[in-house]
């Protein structure tokens, strides 16, 4: 049991140790390799890091609860793109023309509503058909992306509302608006998973589905609610990001699902469900963003970044597997 405890601490602390390691490495390496004369750990740079973490990070919070529940959602990138289009396009609709800047909350609400509905559709299919969530959301990823292209072809959808841009670029107590949204989403999902019956049941279902069923937990509705949550958060992520940028390409959000899952897995959530924490996911999101930022700080290009993150992910999963082997008497597979 001693070794079990040891590996538990190692696992929950690992991501933060990794972040510290990254900070030290990039600070030192930055001294020699960086072209800019600014330090890596510069305050502005770190604030920017948080802001840039927001789009992936907000979705990753939803992915954590989905994966803890024992499912996965590959359609988040496509939902993100659809909601971005709804947000920007709805502001130009003639029926809202009389609202002035009052169109902003309407557009936000519409985009969030669409996210929830698309997520609910995923959840409903998983619940009612019993098909694996991987397959269902693989299908909806393609389908939803198809909707994006049907809407405006290859053309970007653009609309800049300066009031909105001002809001999105604002800094409150030093933190950017997207950072605040990331922190709020993190806190809210942390609360949901650790303090509510729904959250604890999600853990139970992912951990031992049969035990949950035997205890009378209604698995289907919980799954559906979680898909609605991740739909909402994908939409929120789009709303926060495109309020500032004002233009969405039909390819935007592609591969987001993979970045998000990488962050969640780095943060210690089990692929098989039942274990994982929001704090860990937050660490995973920061670690990835640090790596991307740090590598570009020392002059590496995007392809190197992807290569390094890929290798680290495999190393982490291997380490996790080694820590999870309980004893020698276990059946070899």
């Amino acid at each position, binding site marked *: *049991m001693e070794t*079990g*405890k040891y590996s538990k601490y190692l696992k929950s602390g690992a991501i933060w140790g990794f972040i510290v390691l990254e900070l030290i490495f990039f600070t030192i390496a930055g001294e020699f390799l960086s072209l800019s004369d600014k330090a890596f750990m510069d305050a502005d740079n770190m604030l920017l890091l948080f802001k840039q973490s927001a789009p992936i990070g907000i979705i990753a919070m939803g992915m954590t609860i989905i994966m803890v529940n024992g499912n996965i959602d590959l359609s988040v990138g496509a939902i993100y793109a659809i909601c971005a289009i709804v947000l920007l396009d709805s502001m130009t609709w003639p029926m809202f023309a009389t609202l002035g800047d009052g169109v902003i909350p309407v557009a936000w609400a519409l985009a969030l509503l669409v996210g929830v509905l698309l997520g609910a559709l995923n959840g409903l299919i998983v619940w009612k058909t019993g098909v694996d969530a991987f397959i269902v959301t693989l299908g909806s990823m393609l389908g939803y992306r198809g909707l994006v292209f049907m809407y405006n072809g290859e053309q970007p959808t653009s609309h800049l509302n300066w009031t909105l841009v001002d809001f999105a670029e604002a800094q409150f107590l030093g933190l950017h608006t997207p950072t605040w949204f990331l922190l709020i989403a993190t806190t809210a999902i942390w609360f949901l998973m650790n*303090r*509510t*019956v*729904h959250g*604890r*049941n999600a*853990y*139970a279902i992912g*951990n*031992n589905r*049969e*035990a*949950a*069923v*035997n*205890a*009378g*937990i209604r698995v289907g509705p919980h799954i559906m609610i979680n898909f609605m949550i991740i739909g909402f958060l994908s939409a929120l992520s789009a709303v926060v990001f495109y309020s500032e940028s004002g233009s969405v390409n039909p390819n935007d959000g592609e591969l987001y699902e993979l970045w998000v899952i990488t962050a969640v897995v780095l943060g210690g959530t089990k692929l098989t469900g*039942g*274990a994982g924490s929001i704090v860990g996911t937050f660490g995973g999101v920061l670690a990835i963003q640090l790596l991307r930022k740090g590598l570009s700080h020392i002059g590496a290009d995007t392809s190197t970044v992807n290569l390094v993150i890929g290798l680290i992910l495999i190393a982490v999963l291997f380490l996790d597997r080694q820590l999870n082997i309980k*004893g*020698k*008497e*276990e*059946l*070899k597979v």
Partner: protein
Amino acid sequence: MTDQTPVLRLEGIVKTFPGVRALDGVSLNIMPGEVHALMGENGAGKSTLMKVLGGIYQPDEGQIIVGEAPSVMSSPLDAKAKGIVFIHQELSLADELSVAENIYLGELPRKRFGMVDWDTLYRRTDAILDKLKVGFNAKTIVGDLSIANQQMVEIARALTVEAKAVIFDEPTASLTDAEKVVLFEVISDLQAQGVGIVYISHRMEEIFKITDRISVLRDGSYRSTVNTADTNEESITQLMIGRSLDLSRNESHHELGDVALEVRGLSCGNLYTDVSFEVRRGEVLGFYGLVGAGRTEIAETLFGLRDPSAGTVLLDGVETTINSPADAISKGISLVPEDRKGQGLVLGMNCRDNMTLPQVDDLTAGPFVAEGSEVAIFDQYRDKLDIRTPGWKQIVGNLSGGNQQKIVIGKWLSMHPSVLIVDEPTRGIDVGSKAEIHNLIRDLAAQGYAVIVISSEMPEVLHVSDRIVAMYSGKVMRTFTSEEVTEESLIQAISGLSSDKAA
């Protein structure tokens, strides 16, 4: 007790699964404040009956009456709400969650906005745990507990509601003696409160210690209910095994060759300990015991699927270690696994490909698979084992259970093993084919193979074995020759009764 209303009545419960009548008109009365033992062999229908009662299965016919009211148990939670609590034999716990969350799984106390009321949860749980005198608290993570303590968590679930009847399915399977004492105290507390207890166990000494009445099931039908005080172990054993079964013993012996496999003091963690036995060429050694006694785990160790923690394995008198199934096969050990469809066959592949699966690497003509030699191997063993199939192209999934099993056996024979381990050779196979498989096993021994047969069916073990090893919770209790074994002594050995008591 006669003028009281039963807390729970079952009337004419019938439950069928495709091809099997698992329960055939079972009726049972549970009185308030009694401990009612339910006994029967493996597969007699005890667990199915309890699952019907617990709302996991719906009966095809018959009625469940709780108190006065006929009830339908639509789900486990529904059963619990009606006061029927089911303590599972297999642990049904979420090991990443805390003890408290597991005990109140599905009905966590709530505050506003669907929030968990942790204070109430921990307070109630600690009160229950105090009663059970366990050494852990409500916040302990279940995965950190020993199996015995996890069982105590499972038992604690019975104390969360005002139960009318509590069903214990093999509750002591993994408990130490001290923990058993606590469990029996809990049971007598419940009894004093007028709760009816259904107690399923194979362990005679427990049954006679704590129960008031005993009901016996056999082959899915109700046999009899007797007062514990008016009966004894022998008559219960007789009720359980019945007279209708063919319990004829194997009487022919083949000429025995050298010792092919010898195992000395083999242990694997707490799965089994200090197991020693030997098998000679030409001999069939039967392993008999309850589910979970460690028989399959021994087979898996010999086949290189588990690493033993102590002990030695000798093949033809030479000490060896077996690192992997490939290693085992090359050293002449083959395993016909327990789960034929899951572990033994690739159901979607044809007969020939299944049979040559372990050696297809060697059957090549240049870069291609040598189909001709594959067909030749298939034909040879089809004739030898009398496998009835339209041809080698037949998909294995379409064959009958008996013929599927012969394909698996043929597959291993074609690897020319010296030791053949057969785990549950006739599970899910109809009666006619069973006899055929049994004859086949005897024939194989006659041809000089050393055969180990693991089975949970007593007639089978008696029928095919030259010697029988009786196992009980990871230990070898006794080794019988087919001349000295009796059904009673065998049942008592696998129920953990000491051999002097059995004699």
